[in-house]
């Protein structure tokens, strides 16, 4: 047992720190630090800066721009990026469709899509969820019927995050309606400018438009856009969702956010006094810090013990507790603001601190974290079933 990083990993950490704080514009990092929404252009710019440095898609095969890093190095990359307020590469591109195309796509699909996906020249959307499917993804109903060398797609996807920016969408579609539910699903890439594709934004409780409905009305898709084999899409989706576990606990971002809360707390009390002198706030913050330490150390145990791509059993803990803590910190901001937290619509003439204006929308927005990516109830089911062996 040993706590210290190897000299090599320490050097790696320094290299990452240096890169993130010098190669990504300060304006973007300040926007993230202030918890303001990034524009599409800023997200693209940040990812292109990382891609220019060769570190946007380290989890891909080396041939396609990936890095032969250890799980620990990938963890360090991810944490340092968040600590430096650098937006992580767009998950749909870097974490989801890219690895699937690299692993299961034809050579032609790889050449056509992977470089543009890494560089965010194509903005991908995810077409998995449907109105009635929720966490029961395999119950999806959108169909793709083969006609000659085309698929004709009909149906509806929902919760399509940032779909308004999407150039292409990767979908799970039902290609064999007779097969039992997982067996008749395929993985299909669709150009969102194709006639018949309609994107409708959904307003959320924070007042933002982060998710969308996507309708497919007789959309004709070239058959060559099928990834891998027909009716094997569920396997690819499972592969994709398995990848999603890596970095699923946003420890770095939550740590940074809590540390900023501590700074804000110093003048957030009545008359500009420090809320850190309030024992209830102080103990809540200290307790959250300790829980985050526990989470980070658990993440380190998981990456240190992940071999051959098999995740450590404790990895389910990360999503579950990671999102709970992420949410707890957003709630702390609202509480610290008190009445000032009502001022979400205040403009530049407002006397209130900027963090007050974003805190409540942020808190409301982050209720999503325990729902998406396999709700926390799904995580508990996984822990009970696969780790504890408690199967209903």
């Amino acid at each position, binding site marked *: 047992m040993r706590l210290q990083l190897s000299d090599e990993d320490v050097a790696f950490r320094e290299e990452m720190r240096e890169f993130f704080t010098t190669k990504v514009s300060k304006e973007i990092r300040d926007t993230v630090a202030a918890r303001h929404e990034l524009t599409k252009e800023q997200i693209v710019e940040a990812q292109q800066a990382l891609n220019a440095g060769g570190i946007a898609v380290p989890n891909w095969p080396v041939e396609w721009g990936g890095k032969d890093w250890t799980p620990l190095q990938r963890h360090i990359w991810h944490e340092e990026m968040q600590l430096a307020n650098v937006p992580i590469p767009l998950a749909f591109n870097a974490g989801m469709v890219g690895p699937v195309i690299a692993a299961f796509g034809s050579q032609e699909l790889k050449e056509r899509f992977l470089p543009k996906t890494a560089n965010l020249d194509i903005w991908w959307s995810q077409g998995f969820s449907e109105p009635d499917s929720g966490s029961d993804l395999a119950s999806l109903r959108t169909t793709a019927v083969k006609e000659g060398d085309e698929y004709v797609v009909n149906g509806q996807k929902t919760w399509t995050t940032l779909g308004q920016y999407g150039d292409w969408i990767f979908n799970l579609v039902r290609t064999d309606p007779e097969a039992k539910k997982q067996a008749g699903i395929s993985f299909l890439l669709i150009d969102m400018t194709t006639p018949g594709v309609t994107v409708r934004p959904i307003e959320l409780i924070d007042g933002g438009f982060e998710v969308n409905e996507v309708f497919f009305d007789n959309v004709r898709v070239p058959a060559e856009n099928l990834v891998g084999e027909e009716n094997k899409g569920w396997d690819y989706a499972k592969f994709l969702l398995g990848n999603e576990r890596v970095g699923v606990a946003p420890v770095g971002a939550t740590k940074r956010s809590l540390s900023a809360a*501590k700074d804000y707390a110093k003048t957030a009390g009545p008359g500009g006094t420090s809320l850190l002198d309030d024992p209830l706030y102080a103990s809540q913050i200290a307790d959250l*810090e300790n829980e985050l330490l526990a989470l980070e150390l658990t993440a380190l145990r998981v990456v240190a013990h992940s071999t051959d791509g098999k995740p450590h059993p404790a990895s389910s*803990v990360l999503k579950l507790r990671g999102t709970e803590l992420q949410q707890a910190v957003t709630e702390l901001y609202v509480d610290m603001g008190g009445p000032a937290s009502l001022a979400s619509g205040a403009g530049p003439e407002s006397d209130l601190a900027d963090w007050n204006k974003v805190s409540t929308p942020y808190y409301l927005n982050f209720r999503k974290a325990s729902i998406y990516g396999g709700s926390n109830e799904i995580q508990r089911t996984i822990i009970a079933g696969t780790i504890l062996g*408690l199967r209903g």
Partner: protein
Amino acid sequence: MDFTLDAEQVALRDAVRGLLGKSYESSETRRAVTKQDPGWDEKTWAQLAEMGALGLPFAEADGGMGAGPVEVSIVAEEIGRVIAPEPYVEAVVLAGGLIAAAGTDEQRAEILGALSEGTLVPVFAHNEPGQRYSEAGAGVTATKSGDAWTLTGVKEPVIGGARADLLIVSAAVDGGTGLFLVKPDAEGLTRDGYATFEGGRAARIGLNATPATPLGEAGDQSGVIAKVIAEAQIAYGHESLGAMQSALEQTTEYLKTRKQFGVPLSTFQALTFRAADMYVELELARSVVTWATLVLLDGGDAQEAASRAKLQVSKAGRHIGKEAIQLHGGIGMTAEYSVGHFTSRLTAIDHTLGDGRHHLALLVERLDDHGVIEPLP
């Protein structure tokens, strides 16, 4: 960075697990042992000594094994796994640690040698009525007359105090807190032993002009006390991990086998989700406690690490202990069944050397020292 045990450490763990598994193969054995004084099994203690477990942290020159905090943590965790009543953390880590840190060459060789061999059990007499988790021992006064020292005051509860062969007593001296060796048969000393709720033993130790020998230098030893207490807090964290692991395993097994309404309890999601949350708490606590041991190994800030470990273990131990009983239902309440004993022991450990609330308050004092917490050096 590496969180795995090496081959020798795995061998140590397996050996201790084997020994304690035989000594306490059922909760009935443990109950029988804890019903009679001294509350633990002298034979098991001797076997631990024979195996080298009692001398692990001490220098070879002092009769020990020259091992480190990781090896100590392995034994503590195995103690906790079967909640063996042997006073491992109390005698080896806490009392032994004080002697190793503060004792003269002669004191170390004499006492630690005998402790390692299992022939002498020292304990730390530090708690005082009216105090809580203080590092000072101000309620006992030390008086010097010529070259001789005497102590007056009361220590209680002194864990293992009735059976101990040697007491290390903290007492107020000029400029702070000193440490003194006191023989249980010394003049003016009274000890009244009693059982504690989890099957342990404690005592009231009365001192009335009782002759004492300074441990090491006859001055303020509060730095040593704080450091060794931190080591013991972390070791207790490992003992708790063992107990929590067993409580969870036993609960999981029960949910799989116990039938209600014609089906196993594991078919009820309300119950399996609660078991999943117990697992989450255990893994998070394991991470912090293991880290704290590595901080010790690394020579980092032991007190902060110990507080972090104690806080996490306090929360996890309460959660797991209470849920283990609840998920068992009525059987969990009975003394014949072991799951409640884990909860009892976890409760006792929580209130030894600072509970979660106490350590949270210590962490609050440090809240402004840092921006984010960096777990890796």
